[in-house]
């Protein structure tokens, strides 16, 4: 299974990934009608950082979703049935990556569900020409401690 990886040192906040996401992803456009990408690159004194769903192997958001809106899809990615979201923001409360896009006026939370349909190379990764954004094997990204924790963990 694959997931996103961000290399802060290579990012110069050009925002091409955000633009590409907002243009292609029907989901974020449909819901807001405006420029609302699922990927957010933010600046901090310590450097840029990315907020995007990592499609975790243990996915605390799926366990926390009282509306059963977030589910693990057949391809292992975390998908969302936006119509079932009732805006309790339990997912936002448990997501350690701050990936949930909470839109107060719509009383819903949104996330990357790879709706751009490019599972080999998502639109945002394709748009990044700085070498800051990758989509590769999730297991390789996990450190030893996390790998040990996930061993034998029954996936939802």
């Amino acid at each position, binding site marked *: 299974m694959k997931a996103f990886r961000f290399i*802060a040192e290579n990012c110069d906040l050009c925002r091409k990934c955000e633009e590409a996401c907002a243009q292609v992803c029907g989901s974020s456009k449909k819901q807001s009608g405006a420029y609302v990408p699922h990927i957010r690159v*933010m600046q*901090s*004194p*310590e*450097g*840029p*950082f990315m*907020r995007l769903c990592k499609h975790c192997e243990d996915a*605390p958001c*799926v*366990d*926390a979703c*009282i*509306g*059963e809106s977030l589910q693990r899809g057949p391809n292992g990615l975390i998908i969302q049935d936006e*119509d*079932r979201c*009732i*805006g*309790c*923001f*339990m*997912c*936002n*409360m*448990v*997501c*350690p*990556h*701050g990936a*949930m896009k*909470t839109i*107060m*006026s719509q*009383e819903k939370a949104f996330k990357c569900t790879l709706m751009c349909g490019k599972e080999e190379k998502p639109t945002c990764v394709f748009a990044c020409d700085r070498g800051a954004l990758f989509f590769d094997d999730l297991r390789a990204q996990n450190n030893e401690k996390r790998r040990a924790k996930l061993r*034998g*963990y*029954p996936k*939802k």
Partner: protein
Amino acid sequence: MKKIKTASTTGRQHVIVGNCIAAVSAAETLRKMNPQDSIVIIGEEDVPSYSRCLITYFLGDMITRKHLLSHDAQWYAERNVELMLSSRAEGLDVKNRQVMVRQNGKNKTVSYDTLLVATGSTPIFLPAFPYDPDGIIGMRNYADSVRLKSWAKKGKKAVIIGAGFVGLKSAYGLVKQGVQVKVVELLPTVLGRMTDLEASARVKARLTRHELLEIELNNSVIATRKRGDGYVVTYQDGTEEACDFIVASVGVRACTDFLKDSGVDIDRIVLVDDRQQTSVDGIYAAGDVCRSRHIVTGEWIYNAIWPVAAAGARIAAANMSGEKLTYEGNIPMNSVDFYELWITAIGNVQDEGPDVEEITFKTPAIYQKVKLRGGVPFAFMSIGNVDGAGIIRGAIVGKTPWEEFVRRPNAKVLPVVNSYAADPAATACA
């Protein structure tokens, strides 16, 4: 151990008592890990599984019946799970590995190889407000929401006892139906220990902006009596108030009745071990019926929240399938929205002590508070802006020192961290 013949000829029989999230989460895992075994779910209600957290949204017509009842017969059929509805577990024979069930007036026995107790919890009623199907009920299941909905007509008046999450969410739903609601709470804060006085005042102000909703703190109901079609409640100061119906939401107790005298160790709640197994071999428990670990302190606590039920049940199911997994537990937490005012609370915000430090961030729209002990955050509460709450939950669960946490790039998403990093002296107060 003597193995008895079971209903299944191909494999073992896993029986789950209860039919909410812990049950369906366990059934899913059991099916994935044991394609040949038979799985039986014994559900007390007459509808298939649904999310109990959504019944107040159903009450307020924010979601439809179809949306609420998410698991249809097909869901069970696809996973080859036998579902017994309207079936109440009434006893347990540990020696012969059988559950005694009463279904539509008939007694049945269901044999099991492994059993999962996922009966959940039920509202507490006190002598001052005893359960009365005609007008004093709790808000716990689908039937409760249907009944409340049938009573919730414009011009009616309801008294809700308890201003916890269920009480306020019920009030929110009833007000949406045009019912005049009064919420009475014994504590000085709404939402129990998850808010402080200021947060409580903000939530109360937002909710009671609605003309039909009144919230009274530091008060309690000491008696109720029937009068005509309605009820009269007596408050602790002796004043009386008439209403049409009453919702009790002062807390829940675990549904352990059918385990009485079975040999399963219970101390109000089912005492499970780290593998979710009870004191009896082969009998597991998950969800609101049993205890779980506090993920930070490691203490056994009663943490009756959805994520604990979902994750704990999956661990239980894996162990019922022969794995040896432990569940690390979770932290008390909750998140809710009233009229676009979001509230997220993680840990006990009211925890005080000489070694406790707090850091706050206040604007008219946002109120955030972090509590530290020994420089490590242990509780967080946010009102107005809850964006990125999970990032600080990660620090609480991971026992990350505050000074280290505030230097993390993504921590700056939180206003309380951002303002502290800019000027520690201004935001920290002892």
